[in-house]
């Protein structure tokens, strides 16, 4: 666990006044607030650091403790014990939740947002943020990433996901795209005071370990055709997602010729029974290691063409 320089996080020096801290916090919060940086995990992480730094530096008691023990956070407990003893000697009573120092911004992100360093030094009870403070009605949205192979998403399939210890059964529609996010209503955090649950947002990462390329519902594949079949025409067999298909190669087929196999592509998302197309590009394989006889025949062919 590393020491976190909260002054550095807020771009301040140690002599910063309360007003300086507030100003710096505000400026950085406006820059990195998650509402203003959707899908930007680095901004979210930075915002959490900023929040945490403010949590400490804007509270005189925490700041004092941090300044005194920051780098030697391991001694923080001793500090706490000494402080408690001092408090008892004075016969003072201290109420819970006394750390209400600075203003805290609430982003739309998971609640577990304090670093290990912070937890060690100030303890979990030092949090001033959370559901009690932030007005909420609908439950929190949960985010998850699901990795699947291209072949997996060729057909709709049922999956069981474990989110926060709960098993959620869901049907993933065929044709889901790489990077696509689907919202599953009511599988997020619990609502407050009878409000609806939040949603579960699943982002798909589709790995393609096939020799097909995919663009939306269309598939692309390059197929080798031998020189003689390309010149004279013939039949080849091609693998598709729907099984093997026999193709008639026209005589005098040129390299790079593309043909379309209608309906042999990928399923269209949420359009049952509808498929994209498969585009086959012919790559002509030239003969190598020609024998003398072959060369002679090619020369004859050349003469015929000139």
């Amino acid at each position, binding site marked *: 666990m590393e020491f976190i320089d909260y002054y550095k996080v807020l771009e301040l020096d140690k002599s910063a006044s309360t007003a300086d801290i507030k100003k710096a916090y505000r400026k950085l919060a406006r820059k990195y607030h998650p509402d203003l940086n*959707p899908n930007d995990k680095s901004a979210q992480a930075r915002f959490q650091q900023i929040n945490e730094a403010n949590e400490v530096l804007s509270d005189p008691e925490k700041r004092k403790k941090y300044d005194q023990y920051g780098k030697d956070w391991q001694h923080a407990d001793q500090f706490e014990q000494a402080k408690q003893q001092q408090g008892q000697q004075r016969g003072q009573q201290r109420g819970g939740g006394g750390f209400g120092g600075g203003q805290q911004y609430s982003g*739309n992100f998971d609640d577990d947002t304090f670093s290990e360093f912070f937890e060690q030094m100030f303890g979990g009870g030092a949090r001033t943020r959370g559901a009690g403070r932030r007005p909420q009605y609908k439950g929190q949205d949960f985010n998850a990433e699901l990795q699947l192979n291209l072949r997996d998403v060729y057909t709709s399939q049922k999956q069981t996901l474990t989110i926060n210890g709960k098993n959620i059964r869901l049907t993933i529609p065929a044709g889901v795209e790489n990077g696509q996010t689907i919202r599953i209503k009511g599988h997020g955090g619990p609502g407050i005071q009878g409000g609806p649950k939040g949603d579960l947002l699943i982002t798909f990462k589709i790995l393609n370990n096939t020799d097909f390329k995919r663009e939306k519902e269309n598939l692309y594949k390059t197929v080798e055709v031998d020189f003689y079949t390309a010149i004279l025409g013939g039949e080849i067999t091609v693998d598709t997602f729907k099984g093997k298909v026999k193709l008639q190669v026209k005589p005098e087929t040129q390299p790079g010729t593309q043909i379309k196999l209608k309906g042999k592509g990928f399923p269209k998302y949420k359009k049952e029974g509808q498929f994209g197309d498969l585009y086959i590009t012919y790559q002509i394989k030239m003969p190598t290691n020609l024998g003398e006889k072959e060369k002679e025949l090619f020369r004859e062919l050349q003469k015929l063409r000139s």
Partner: protein
Amino acid sequence: MNLDDLIATEELCIRYKVEHSFIRSLFESGLIEIVTIEQQEYVHFDMVSEFEKMHRLHYELDINLEGLEAIKHLLEQLKKLQTENLQLRNRLNLYE
């Protein structure tokens, strides 16, 4: 529209400790949608997260209504560009 999916604006005012005028202003600026049924104004649950976002930006970051409008517009553009970027990245795989 199912009434169970709606939340009365008055209830939002209580829960989020805001004036009704704030919700009204968001509606008039096109930032949220309000449904009126028998003279009672409601916000659809799906709109609540948008309302929460505007609430946070306004009360926590001191952004005024004009700023919220500009932010909403820019966030929509950002989302569009992110989608386009994703589609182009997926398309780029064709040439890799």
